[in-house]
């Protein structure tokens, strides 16, 4: 008797359970339709590195064959400088070209005496020092040395020229007017040229 009843119960369940499962599954499917997942934000950051370079086209070695005391001595040929940049105009107001001596008191070193930066003058007719000016300014934006620098140009930057270049001629001169007579010999030095944005 018990065993017959048990078989009937199992038979009924065998019909009911699948139906219940189907009904439950249909309700879940109805809940997922038209529902989006929570938004996820992925930050994208791609950096275009700004470019700034200074190239000397000609005149990287300047020579005065014979210095004359107590007068101005011009280097015969200009230094031709090309400055190129590719910068963000929203973050750059100007591109500046600086000329400087590492040790202003010894711009050019001779056999027994030195020629200081105050006696070396530069002119860039297309830049800021349109007349010969002593290289005695201070550093700009960390470029240069105190008392041994000269700002050659300040190029304003806008969207139009955010990627551009310019070529300038730099004339150099040694002014020995009033300077003690130099001992004979070779006087050598290095003038640094470097651009910096502001």
């Amino acid at each position: 008797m018990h065993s017959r009843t048990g078989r009937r119960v199992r038979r009924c369940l065998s019909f009911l359970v699948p139906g219940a499962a189907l009904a439950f599954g249909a309700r879940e499917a109805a809940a997922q339709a038209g529902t989006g997942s929570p938004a996820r934000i992925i930050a994208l950051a791609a950096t275009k590195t700004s470019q700034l370079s200074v190239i000397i086209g000609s005149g990287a070695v300047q020579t005065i064959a014979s210095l004359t005391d107590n007068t101005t001595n011009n280097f015969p040929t200009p230094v031709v400088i090309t400055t190129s940049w590719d910068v963000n105009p929203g973050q750059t107001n100007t591109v500046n070209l600086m000329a400087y001596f590492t040790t202003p008191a010894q711009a050019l070193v001779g056999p027994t005496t030195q020629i200081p930066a105050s006696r070396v003058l530069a002119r860039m007719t297309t830049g800021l020092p349109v007349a010969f000016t002593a290289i005695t300014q201070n550093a700009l934006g960390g470029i240069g040395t105190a008392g041994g620098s000269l700002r050659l140009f300040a190029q304003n930057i806008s969207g139009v020229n955010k990627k551009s270049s310019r070529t300038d001629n730099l004339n150099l001169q040694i002014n020995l007017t009033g300077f003690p007579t130099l001992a004979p010999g070779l006087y050598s030095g290095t003038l640094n040229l470097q651009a910096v944005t502001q």
Partner: protein
Amino acid sequence: MQRPMNRALAAAAALAFALASTAQAQVGLTSNTATVTLNATKSSTLTVSPSTATATLASITDNSNANNFSNVSLTTDWNLTAGTSVRLIGWFATPAQALVNGTALIPSANVEGGINGGGFSPFTGAAVGGVGVAGGSLQLFSQAVAVANYFSTRTDVLNLRLNLVGFPTTSAGLYTGTLNVQAVVQ
């Protein structure tokens, strides 16, 4: 709902930070350093500067050495790196014709020079260090030089005269000539 919002804010903050970092990196952007080599040579110098270009003798007296020209001041400047002496040489290009008056000639042997009143000697010496003419030159001074005075100067008074003692009587007229004064380092 709250968690997605927090994540969105965090992501936005990260993006803003990244952009801010980029902006900071561009301020004061510097280029490479290009260099210009400067070379200037100062040559050794040696110059003689006379105070006047003309020495005159108003009236020649024959058979006498009392024929003094007006004095000439000579400044000799030097700026050297080597050498042991600076020498000042006076010389006539053509010793036989130191002064000329038409066909009348006074040779350099009858022209005497000295400096600073130290006595007279005729211009009959040899060239010194390639400066001068054989038989028509006179070393006026020899200044020792060394490192201590490689850059220096001196000024001297050049005394000149005609010594016509025993010389044939000169023709009347103007006698002119050119005395060269040149310094040399030895």
